[in-house]
């Protein structure tokens, strides 16, 4: 019960923040895919940068566990590309479609219904996928620092510098 209550509060705060950042709008998501306005990319990469530092700090202190998804090239690449096609049509991703409904963009309700259908269709296809696509290029639960065999803080500093360079470039170009 406590877990559900905290889950709801976390979701409410996340939805509030995303609405204020305007990242749950079709126009903002499509503007990013049309390479005109990088608001959603700025939001995502800033979130990632802050969370990356916080998570690895707590991880080094032994206070949290990582929860890594395995790298399966078949699933990640093929599924990722299929997702991108659907995203380009809908203009909302799953979490932002919920947020869009909350702020009254009710075209997202049809996207959400489609998502439920898509999840059901995948459940039907899963036994086949498990035998085929999900066996292609399975590298297990791997991170960039593990793959390179270097300390994660070196990778965090490099990625942080890259993200900040990207932000500066976006601002310079007015994206």
């Amino acid at each position, binding site marked *: 019960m406590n877990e559900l209550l905290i889950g709801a509060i976390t979701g409410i705060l996340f939805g509030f923040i995303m609405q204020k950042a305007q990242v749950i709008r079709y126009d903002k998501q499509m503007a990013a895919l049309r390479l005109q306005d990088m608001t959603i990319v700025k939001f995502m990469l800033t979130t990632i940068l802050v969370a990356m530092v916080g998570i690895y700090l707590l991880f080094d202190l032994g206070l949290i566990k990582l929860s890594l998804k395995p790298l399966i090239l078949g699933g990640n690449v093929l599924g990722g590309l299929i997702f991108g096609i659907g995203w380009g049509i809908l203009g909302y991703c799953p979490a932002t479609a919920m947020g869009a409904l909350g702020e009254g963009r009710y075209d997202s309700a049809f996207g959400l219904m489609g998502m439920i259908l898509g999840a*059901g269709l995948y459940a039907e296809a899963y036994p086949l996928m498990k035998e085929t696509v999900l066996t292609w290029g399975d590298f297990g639960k791997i991170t960039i620092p593990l793959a390179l065999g270097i300390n994660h803080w070196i990778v965090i500093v490099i990625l942080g510098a890259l993200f900040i360079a990207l932000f500066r470039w976006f601002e310079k170009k007015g994206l």
Partner: protein
Amino acid sequence: MNILRKTTWSPYTAGVLAGILLVLSVFVMGKYFGASTTFVRVAGFVEQSVAPEKVAGMAYFIKEKVIIDWQFVFVFGVLFGSLASAWLSKEKMAVAVPPMWEARFGPSRVRRWMAAFLGGTVLMFGARLADGCPSGHGLSGLAQIAISGYVSLICFFLAGIILARILYGGGNNHE
């Protein structure tokens, strides 16, 4: 609290807040953000109401468990958080067709809703095949420097950018 009534926060400010929220969520509850598994559970609940025996025997529903869990309430929380934010800043609610879509494809609601449904279906099939969406792979995956996150997020954007170009054509024609 004027800040809560403001229409827009900088994506960087919002990103810092969302990053702190993610770190707190992992620290307090051990939960990383994600959204797309919830749609599998909703599909499971819908199918259960018609054919419970079928759902009980399907490998994917057994794997992902048709239950209300932390992520389920988190995803619905996003809707209410966005609603609260939009209400506080007194934004125009009830937008049937996104402005950018309307400028390109006209004001037809049915056309937009059908496209949204189709896009949602395709997107979620891809998200489940990739084992995550921009929240699970994007935010949580990249925050852990998971290679699966980078591969998936790049594929999301790659296919999304191509689709946007097909739908809207090239160039930077605003509106």
